[in-house]
């Protein structure tokens, strides 16, 4: 605005510098033309330099994101709002959460939520992998944020032993030593890691869904994340339990239950049998 004010003043000064005698009518006509030209110039300059109204819609969405937006507008808009800005009391804003968060929540079936409760539960997913990618692309292009690297196997050549140590330090407090999950306060919980895929575990660490803290790349480097995933997938999930039936890996609670339900029950029946033989 200021810049074209300056320019206008300069123009007027130049015109005043060469006074030419003209008729009154022509002078008036010239003034009118100059005024119109100045207005047009100012208006045009404003249009060029100032942010326009349409500029908000301007960054064009990719094809995938457009597909994602269509899905979003059907399945997510109720709680997350028309432009993913969130709805008070229903759902948080998705600006800046990135595709990692979308991928974790939607591919594990947690989103769309069945109802508002302490925590979204894992369910059979509502969308195909392709649709999840499209939704993630839309949210990514909308607000940016963390992304999961490409590929389905994210733990190739990773160090399982290092991962185990990191797992015990960072994860076992909530997900328990065997990855079976555990309770948090007020109905919240750390879910079991058994059904989780490489990408979901990676996405969870990056985005910190629900009650989980974010483990950003500056806290746990991508290599360490791969180590942790290797430990979960190769040791906790694919490892056979060396000692036999693992009793759900709930620790001493189920072991205590087992000694009464199996040991004591078997031996009480034995003693009934023995005493009955007299």
């Amino acid at each position, binding site marked *: 605005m200021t810049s074209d004010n300056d320019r206008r003043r300069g123009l007027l000064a130049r015109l005043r510098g060469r006074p030419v005698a003209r008729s009154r009518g022509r002078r008036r006509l010239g003034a009118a033309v100059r005024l119109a030209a100045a207005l047009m110039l100012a208006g045009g300059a404003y249009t060029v330099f100032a942010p326009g109204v349409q500029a908000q819609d301007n960054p064009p969405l990719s094809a995938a994101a457009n597909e994602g937006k269509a899905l979003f507008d059907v399945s997510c808009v109720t709680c997350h709002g028309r432009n993913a800005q969130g709805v008070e009391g229903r759902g948080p804003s998705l600006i800046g959460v990135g595709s990692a968060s979308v991928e974790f929540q939607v591919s594990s079936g947690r989103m769309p939520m069945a109802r508002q409760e302490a925590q979204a539960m894992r369910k059979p997913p509502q969308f195909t992998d392709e649709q999840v990618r499209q939704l993630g692309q839309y949210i990514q292009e909308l607000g940016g944020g963390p992304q999961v690297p490409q590929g389905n196997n994210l733990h190739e050549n990773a160090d399982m*032993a290092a991962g185990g140590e990191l797992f015990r330090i960072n994860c076992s407090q909530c997900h328990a*030593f065997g990855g079976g999950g555990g309770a948090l306060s007020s109905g919240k*919980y750390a879910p079991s890691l058994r059904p989780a895929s490489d990408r979901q575990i990676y996405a969870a660490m990056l985005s910190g869904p629900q009650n989980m803290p974010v483990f950003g790349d500056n806290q746990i480097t991508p290599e360490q994340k791969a180590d942790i995933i290797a430990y979960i997938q190769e040791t906790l999930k694919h490892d056979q339990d060396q000692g036999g039936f693992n009793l759900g890996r709930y620790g*001493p609670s189920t072991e205590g239950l087992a*000694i009464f339900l*199996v*040991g*004591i029950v078997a031996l009480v029946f034995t003693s009934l049998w023995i005493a009955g033989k007299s």
Partner: protein
Amino acid sequence: MKRRKFDAAALPAKTAGALDDRFQAATPLRKLLNKVFPDHWSFLLGEIALFSFIVLLLTGVFLTFFFEPAMTEVVYDGSYAPLRGTPMSAAYASSLDLSFDVRGGLIMRQMHHWAALLFMASIVVHMLRVFFTGAFRKPRETNWIIGSLLFWVGFLAGFTGYSLPDDGLSGTGLRIASGIILSIPVIGSWVSSSIFGGEFPGTIIISRFFIAHVLLIPGLLVALISVHLGLVFKQKHTQWPGPGRTNENVVGERMFPRYALKQGGFFMVVFGVIALMGGLFQINPIWYFGPYEAWVVSAASQPDWYVMFLDGSTRLMPAWEISIPLGDGYVIPPLFWPTVVLPGILVGLSTMYPFLEARRLKDYKHHNLLQRPRDAPARTAVGAMAVSFYVVLTLSGGNDVIADKFHISLNAMTWAGRIGLLVVPPLAYYVAYRLCLGLQQHDREVLAHGVETGIIKRLPDGRFVEVHQPLTPTDGHDGHGPALDYVGWVVPKKMNRLGALGPAIRGFFYPIEKPAEAPVSPGHPPVEPRPEREEIGSGERR
């Protein structure tokens, strides 16, 4: 030279004679072998504890051959890949080697652990039998006290045992134990630093626990068990009241051969159950917990079941801190009450119970006959109260697992435990008491009026009555015989207990009751042929 004839049949007698010549063993041995034990299934529960203790000794000796009780740091290089290259204590490394590299080591470790759980469980079940039947009464109070002490010494044995592998779980338990010791006013910090040799965890605790676990505590257990069994021998076994059984005799089977054979068989079964559990069910997978590090605490870190009630009481205890304005201020942490005071009260109450009851009932006589739980309603109700108190605490000790797996809020579980701890025991007392009275009343009713037959008779005036089968022959007046006295034993309450269905054929794989010509042992009268069945009707002939 005349070759002497070797008589194999005379060999045992000759050997025994030769031994008796030298050791004069026959007289005491005959007394021992002829000792009579009463026969009831509930008398075998204590044996489970004894036999699992033997399994504990056997498997424990095996484990000591390979376990290294040291906290020196080593780098694991065994066959369990996910821990290879991890620095850990020698104790943990040798436990891992025991599990993965020693042949048969894992099943031995698991058998040892299951046997420990079974030992404690059977102690508790045996204790419940003794309590609810009044077997602890004079003259057996001492044995009751020894039995209670066996539970607490077993508790220590278990705790020192599962602290030895030095994995994440046992280290967490040790940390809690050190916190409990520290919470004791005045002496806490002194006791803690003398046990741990300085600050927790120090470098000595595993060696100390090891010697306590393999020498001191088992020695104490062996001593207590010996006195326990010796007293049972000396004071003789209690028995249920019944025909021919009085306060002065013991009716049952002789020690040899039947009782000894049965016990030998029972030992094999206990051993078998422990071996099966050790082979089939994984217990304490130390390799998942990793080496103990102060910053590693897994979710669902619970103690073994017999310690869980202390964990529960800690979880339920509100955070009430008592500050005493003394000097710079002295604080009694809330942990002190549920973990030091509560077990102290429990030990005192449980060991002193026989004397409390005798004092309350002013009953100082000898009791060798048991009481059915229903006949001592107050005791049964107190027992129900104690059991429910313990169960609420134990469940609260695992309340995070229950909350997680049954989708209940953990806060709700905690509050349910707090309220339940106060409400459930009195409720259990009331319900148990009423049940006892109801069962007593039913016994008396059956004795007076007979067994319900399930036959409904319509009277001429249109009323319906159920026909009862009297237990004694009727004397013709009102269909009732002479009233029977209650003798403290089972009253038949179903018609087939009175022979309405004829005796059931007994036997596990094939009938043990053969026709009369079958050979029978001299101790048993020949089996009578089955009496003709006759229908028991309403007693009226048409």
